[in-house]
């Protein structure tokens, strides 16, 4: 299991979503699928069809910026953040 912290703006888009969630996944790609299974449509908000994490979304695993292929060890802390963007 890993612990994932979701951005507030994302949680607002999914009425029953939680800011902190524990999931089982081997890598960030699997984590995105697990989020999507729990809250359908969430993967589309975080990833595009390149496939890649969206340009203005940052995923940090154990304090390092991650890609979809980044592995997750059991107990890992994952932060998903919205980047500075907009106007």
């Amino acid at each position, binding site marked *: 299991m890993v612990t994932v912290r979701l951005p507030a*703006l994302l949680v607002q888009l999914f009425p029953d979503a939680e800011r902190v969630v524990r999931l089982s996944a081997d890598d960030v790609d699997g984590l995105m699928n697990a989020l999507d299974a729990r809250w359908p449509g969430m993967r589309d908000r975080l990833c*595009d*069809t*390149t*496939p890649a994490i969206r*340009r203005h979304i940052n995923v940090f695993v154990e304090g390092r910026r991650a890609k979809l292929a980044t592995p997750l060890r059991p107990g890992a802390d994952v932060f998903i953040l919205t980047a500075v*963007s907009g106007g």
Partner: protein
Amino acid sequence: MSRKTLAIIGTKKGVFILESDSERETWRRRGPYCEHWPINHAIGDPETGVIHAAGGNEWFGPAVWTSPDLGETWTHSSQGLAYPQGETPVKTAWSIAAAHGRLYTGVEPAGLFVSEDRGQTWAPVEGLQRHPSRPEWQPGGIGLVLHSIVTNPDDRHEMWVGISSVGVFHTADGGETWTTRNKGTRCDFLPEGMRYPEFGQCVHCVAMAPGKSHRLYQQNHCGMYRSDDGGASWESIEAGLPSSFGFPVAVHPRDAEKLFFVPLNGAELGRYSPGASAAVWRSDDGGGHWSDKRAGLPQEGAYFGVMRQAMATDAHDPAGVYFGSSNGSLYASRDEGETWACIARDLPAISSVETLVVEA
């Protein structure tokens, strides 16, 4: 029975709704909706009373938002609103249309998607992507966007789309095959002798005349046009207008000869009303003659633009006409353009204006 009139406004920071009765004298503003997402186009489907909004967010990508209760609650979906892996991903949804029980949305990079379940899931209209010209499509100033979707109310298989810097395309078989429909529209930005290509025209807006499914009007980067053969050929109707440049065109809800443009001073001159004096120009004879309608509009210091989806008419008699400005003002006329009032100001930049009239 009294009727409720809604002006549905897509802005850079969400959807706003202006609400009035049949008289349209006083308005109540609601919103912003859609979590402040940039919304390029929002419509009210007169068949279902449902509101749909097409947009995209730098963080979270494209989505179509749907409200079944006139804006009180919303859901969003982009399920299926995607190109195959490896292709440039869909950045944002740009336009939306409802017809024959279906929803269509146009996206950037240019493409068309259809929903058979009121916006919950989407599927690509692949025939447009297979058009032989597709590898040569080049983005315009706003990107490679499909912004105009015109459906035929009498034929579920017929449709036109407008793509910036690419032109107008037509299908008669439900989207399986498409043909270019740009004959007679100019590309003033190309070298002499090359200004009437098969495609590459910068269409800004296409609208269908009521009751005449093959009478189309078009505002182009380079001129205003009319077609009486479903876009197979276009005739310039810009004589008598102060400029050949502008973005939106709107048609009267019942009179095929009555239409409205907002000419701006020019593509390279600031893109605001000539002399910074705002006017809507109306023709009552299909573009043969024009008159400027200014009463109630700012006649000095009006440096705003009006975007390609930001003008609409309503279903009342006399018809209402509405346009939204790039500086966040919404102007409305309840006498077919003769006089105007500002019914909202200081909104975010307005991308689209549509109307919906429902039983109160």
